[in-house]
């Protein structure tokens, strides 16, 4: 039987992969018809990579407590599919490197400004050029913050608050950052000297690939009350920063992949595929990895904080405004594993929740949502793809039950990089964007085709699917004015 023979459509945008062949729980996929077709094509190709097969692998891991989830932006990753969520029991469950990825706490920070679209339109070229200068990006770029190894340890332990204390930020940045910019349980000793050495020059750098900095305008308000709470209004200019934990996170991932390969063997864990190497959550290996992930998360928070400061300074100067009027709406990661409290079958439990290419999306009333947003749930930030829209959404009470309070993180890729290069040309994309009034400044000229908007799924339908599933509510659609890429 093919894997799709075990799939059943149970709702408008909801499919269930029935437990079979070693699966301990079901898989549940929230996706629209276009995505399901794509998943089916992948699954039918025995040589290709399949997100549904990866979801099946997640559902086969020890200690998983409820269906393994795939959100509407699902596509194949390594280990978990991207857009994958898996919650595990703290005593019997495992922690999986492939459930987090190499770019630990990669995420998006959204800044709002007092500017209107009309204020920046005449000067957008200069504003974009200033930001391009101000924010280091691309391979080999170096951050403005010069840190010693001792200071790196403080970044890893303290996260964004440390950067704010160094003078790069304001207190409210922290109030509106997930976990207040400081992940719990960080232990710098769990991070190798090599990882720290690699990070030395990279705090405050954007990186490359799909990372970006965008100046955007609020194109449409979709949920006025929540938008008001988030400080967003139509035509307002905002800035999105998409980046992660840079080389430090990458090295933590590489170090622990190896360590987990040993641990899987040592503890005799039956893993469905080598890409799912893992350790018992309670084992010394599992605990050390969690401490290292918290360090990686702090590094990413600190990185987005340092870039926020650069953006704030540059934009305030370019536009002649007070820097402190540029404020953080929210900062949220989409690659992590954390201990969280969730209700399962009517019982409140502490669980280890992995989200790979998925954000947290806590609904109304949760204590860890900033007070000003508590009536709605915290914002989730859905990245667009150069020419297309980004979205601000928020979590729901239903999403807490259906998806451990998780949200989509972007459109999700539809084409491989190879296919994108064959289909698109960088110079044509550049002129298409210019024709749409979007400035693109890229350090990496060759990579533009790989990141072409057409290489991704349609973000609007992915957002609609998340809304139809009842897990996320769209609050505002953002349209890019200028895109800066690594």
């Amino acid at each position, binding site marked *: 039987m093919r894997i799709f023979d075990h799939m059943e459509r149970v709702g408008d945008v909801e499919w269930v992969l029935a437990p079979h062949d070693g699966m301990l729980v079901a898989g549940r996929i929230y996706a629209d018809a276009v995505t399901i077709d794509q998943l089916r094509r*992948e699954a039918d190709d025995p040589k*290709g*990579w399949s997100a549904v097969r990866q979801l099946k692998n997640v559902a086969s891991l020890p200690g998983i407590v409820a269906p393994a989830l795939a959100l509407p932006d699902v*596509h*194949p*990753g*390594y*280990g978990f599919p*991207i857009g994958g969520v898996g919650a595990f029991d703290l005593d019997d469950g495992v922690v999986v490197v*492939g459930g987090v*990825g*190499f*770019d630990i706490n990669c995420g998006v920070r959204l800044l709002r400004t007092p500017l209107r679209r009309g204020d920046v339109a005449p000067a957008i070229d200069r504003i974009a050029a200033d930001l391009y200068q101000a924010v280091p990006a*691309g*391979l*080999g770029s170096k951050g403005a913050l010069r840190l010693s190894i001792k200071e790196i340890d403080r970044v890893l332990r303290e996260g964004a608050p440390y950067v704010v204390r160094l003078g790069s930020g304001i207190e409210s940045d922290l109030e509106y950052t997930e976990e207040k910019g400081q992940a719990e349980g960080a232990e710098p000793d769990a991070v190798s000297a*090599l990882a720290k*050495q*690699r*990070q*030395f*020059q*990279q705090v405050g750098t954007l*990186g*490359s*690939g799909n990372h970006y900095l965008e100046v955007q305008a609020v194109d449409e308000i979709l949920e006025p009350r929540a938008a008001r709470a988030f400080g967003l209004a139509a035509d307002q200019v905002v800035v999105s920063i998409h980046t992660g934990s840079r*080389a430090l*996170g*990458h*090295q933590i*991932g*590489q170090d622990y*992949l*190896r360590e987990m*390969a040993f641990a899987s063997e040592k503890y005799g864990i039956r893993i469905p595929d*080598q*890409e799912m*190497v893992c350790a018992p959550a309670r084992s010394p290996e599992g605990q050390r990895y969690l401490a290292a992930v918290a360090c990686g998360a702090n590094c990413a928070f600190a990185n987005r904080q340092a870039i926020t400061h650069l953006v704030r300074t540059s934009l305030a100067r370019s536009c002649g405004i007070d820097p402190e009027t540029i404020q953080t709406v929210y900062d949220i990661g989409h690659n992590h594993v954390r201990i969280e409290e969730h209700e399962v079958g009517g019982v409140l439990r502490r669980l280890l929740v992995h989200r790979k290419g998925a954000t947290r999306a806590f609904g109304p009333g949760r204590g860890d949502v900033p007070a000003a947003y508590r009536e709605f749930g915290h914002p989730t930030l859905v990245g667009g793809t150069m020419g297309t829209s980004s979205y601000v959404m928020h979590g729901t009470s239903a999403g807490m039950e259906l998806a451990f309070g998780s949200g989509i993180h972007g459109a999700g*890729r*539809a*084409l*491989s*990089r*190879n*296919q994108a290069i064959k289909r698109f040309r960088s110079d044509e994309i550049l002129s298409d964007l210019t024709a749409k009034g979007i400035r693109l400044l890229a*350090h*990496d*000229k*060759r*990579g533009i085709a*790989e990141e072409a908007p057409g290489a991704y799924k349609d973000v609007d339908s992915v957002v609609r699917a998340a809304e139809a599933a009842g897990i996320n509510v769209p609050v505002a659609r953002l349209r890019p004015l200028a895109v800066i890429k*690594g």
Partner: protein
Amino acid sequence: MPFVYLDHTADLAIRAWGSSIGEAFAQAALAMFSKMIRTDRVRPMIAREYTLQANSLRELLVAWLAALLVPKDVEDLVFSRFDVDVHTTELGFELCGRALGEPLDAGHHEPSGEVKGITYLGLDVREETGVWYAEFVADV
């Protein structure tokens, strides 16, 4: 070119080959760097030596490729030429390798994307009719 980029939706899948394990590993490294920079423009001016051990060839491939990613962050070095020898030991396998390159010159080397790490997805080292293949997926 003794390597190809395979289709993976999000990441970079590579198949490299050669007449020996060492050659396949060298081509794998070249394929990885060719994704990040114009390797044809990187002069083999500076050498870095590597001695690595692992209990499987797959682990050894990951260790080799992961090690090569470090100098770009620590000393700004990128590579374009690789000499690799792999032999068996009592405990498994040992690699003695050399990577040659020069400091990154963003204007000249045209960097494009960045390999974040080497995954275990689709990881394979095998011999078929006298040809050694090294296959891996890198997170980009």
